């Protein structure tokens, strides 16, 4: 702008000032919306913290160790022990199933599948990500749960000695943390697959060809060239999936039959998760009940914030992954 032609007619000066004003307005608008996003994030934390404070000051139990959830009782008692436990256990089950399978699918798409299958299949996996969670929930409750019967009793029969797979009351409908974990695994498969697939695609061609030229089999090539390069990507993809699993609400609320019992028997119905508890208790919650739910929401918010933030930091550290953050 500074080097306008010297012989510019007079009118140009005025127009230039206009454009400079326009520039300023536009830039401030753009920067303002960026700041607005930051403000929203801060406001989420702030408002939830404020409400949580109101609830916690009235709590008769200990917020971290109490099992029951009765914030509207004359003497409010509520704690997140069961919820935290259920959230973590279901997320662990989901991760244990989803991460290996997702890495397998990503490798399938990037290195194993015939070209004709790979592209449409990658597409299908992306579509799977678009299925709304309520539909997953409905499918989980009306299709998956009845089909889990056989597997649960089989696990109970042969792996019951591990304590974890012991069903204390046989014959119950498998609306338990294990089924929830499997459903969550199906739900987070697409995101983990999508991110790791992009990372696997960006492995330098030379590394792969060098390995193959040295006589490596395809698996040895993947083990020595692809996986080491992709490890940070896999980790961050898994953490993105973990974030989803921790925060999933409605599918869990539909499938799990919850109670306030903390039990490691994951085949027994019961337990709960943060998000599921909020969705379920919200409708009949009174004033203090809502505040208490917001306190548990704040805990969930902070946990997902940490998990997602860590995942993004890992991706951002490796510049080669640009474009891999879905």
């Amino acid at each position, binding site marked *: 702008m500074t080097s306008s032609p010297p012989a510019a007619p007079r009118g140009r000066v005025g127009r230039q000032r206009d454009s400079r004003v326009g520039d300023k307005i536009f830039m401030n608008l753009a920067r303002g919306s960026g700041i607005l996003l930051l403000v929203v994030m801060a406001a989420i934390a702030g408002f939830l913290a404020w409400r949580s404070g109101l609830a916690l000051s009235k709590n008769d139990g200990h917020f971290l160790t109490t099992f029951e959830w009765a914030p509207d009782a004359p003497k409010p008692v509520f704690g997140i022990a069961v919820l935290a436990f259920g959230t973590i256990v279901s997320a662990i089950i989901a991760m244990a199933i989803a991460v290996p399978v997702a890495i397998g699918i990503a490798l399938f798409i990037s290195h194993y599948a015939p070209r004709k299958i790979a592209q449409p299949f990658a597409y299908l996996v992306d579509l799977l990500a678009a299925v709304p969670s309520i*539909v997953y929930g409905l499918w989980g409750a009306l299709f998956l749960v009845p089909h889990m019967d056989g597997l649960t009793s089989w696990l109970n029969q042969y792996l019951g000695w591990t304590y974890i797979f012991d069903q204390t009351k046989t014959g119950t409908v498998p609306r338990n943390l294990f089924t929830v974990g499997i459903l969550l695994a199906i739900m987070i498969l697409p995101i983990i697959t999508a991110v790791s697939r992009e990372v696997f695609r960006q492995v330098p061609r030379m590394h792969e060809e060098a390995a193959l030229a040295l006589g490596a089999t395809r698996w040895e090539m993947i083990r020595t060239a692809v996986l080491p390069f992709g490890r940070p990507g896999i980790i961050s993809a898994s953490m993105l999936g973990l974030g989803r699993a921790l925060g*999933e609400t409605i599918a869990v609320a539909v499938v799990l039959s919850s109670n306030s019992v903390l039990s490691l028997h994951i085949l027994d119905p019961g337990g709960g998760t943060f998000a599921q508890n909020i969705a379920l208790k919200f409708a009949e919650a009174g004033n203090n009940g809502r505040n208490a739910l917001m306190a548990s929401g704040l805990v969930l918010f902070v946990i997902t914030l940490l998990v997602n933030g860590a995942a993004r930091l890992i991706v951002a550290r490796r510049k080669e992954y640009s474009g891999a953050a879905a």
Partner: protein
Amino acid sequence: MSAATTTVSADARPLGRALTANRLPKWAPAAVAAGSIALGCGIGAVGGLASHLQWGLISAILFVAIGYALSARVEGRRQAKDRLATSVVWVAFILAVVPLVALTFYTIQQGADVVNGYFLSHSMKGVLASGPGGGIYHALIGTLEQVGLATATAAPVGLLTAVYLVEYGRGRLAKTVTFFVDVMTGVPSIVAGLFILSLWNLALGFNYSGFSGSLALAILMMPVVVRSTEEMLKLVPNELREASYALGVPKWKTILRIVLPTAIGGITTGVMLSVARITGETAPVMMLVFGADYINSNPFDGPQQSLPMYIWQQYSVVNNDYGYARAWGAALVLIAFVMGLNLIARGIARWRSPKGGH
């Protein structure tokens, strides 16, 4: 069975070709797969295992194990490991296909009987929950209005933020915004709902309405729009900007007239994908819109309905076979809507991707 024949045929090959190691014939994996599926189903049927999930799991384990054993005998350990990895990857692929196919087919199968003209054009007003009938018209209107309002709020903010990050952003503020946009994509939807509840409904005293639901949806939508728009703007070649500056066009005009139009295809795709994402959100809508059985076409006043919440209510509140049927019908409509948006969005991306994109 077929596994045994494979071993025999492989062993029976003439030895003595020094440079070529023994290899399994090309059809071996397919034969092992067929054999282990037959064996798995056989074991399942004989053992009287009720769920077909187990049949599949047994077959999968057999497939991996037999393939490994066979290859280890004929080809040696390294090749066997390679085959093991290949079969595991194929099993993972099938494991992913099964739920996808099951989900899609089950939804279509259950929903197809329910969805018809009546279902799409009537509300639940005056319909007994314990009986048949009723429809999703009110939910359709609610969803369209809420998603429309959310898009109208979130898309401009997201677009401008992306413009800021790509065209202006330097220094610490831009870095902070980038990081928090990334983190914000992971905010659980229920937390967004709680936040709007505490801000809009409790602190500011507004009532349940479609609009407060759309505010929560906007929070979920914004970071997605920012991310996708950012990627698209980065693909716009710098030469275009420089050519525009060289002609004396101010920066804001360059952005509005050159940069954004060039990337418009990708931006549209991103916005549509994010619309598809928020259309299926249940949790925040459930808290903020409250759910009405009747048609309320004013999103700023009083409870509305939305498709995801309708499914939830029909399933968990009505909770009988008629409710399930209506839920499946609504689920089919919802999936069709979301998938349709996805397909159109990707079509646009292909059709109008800027040069240098993929």
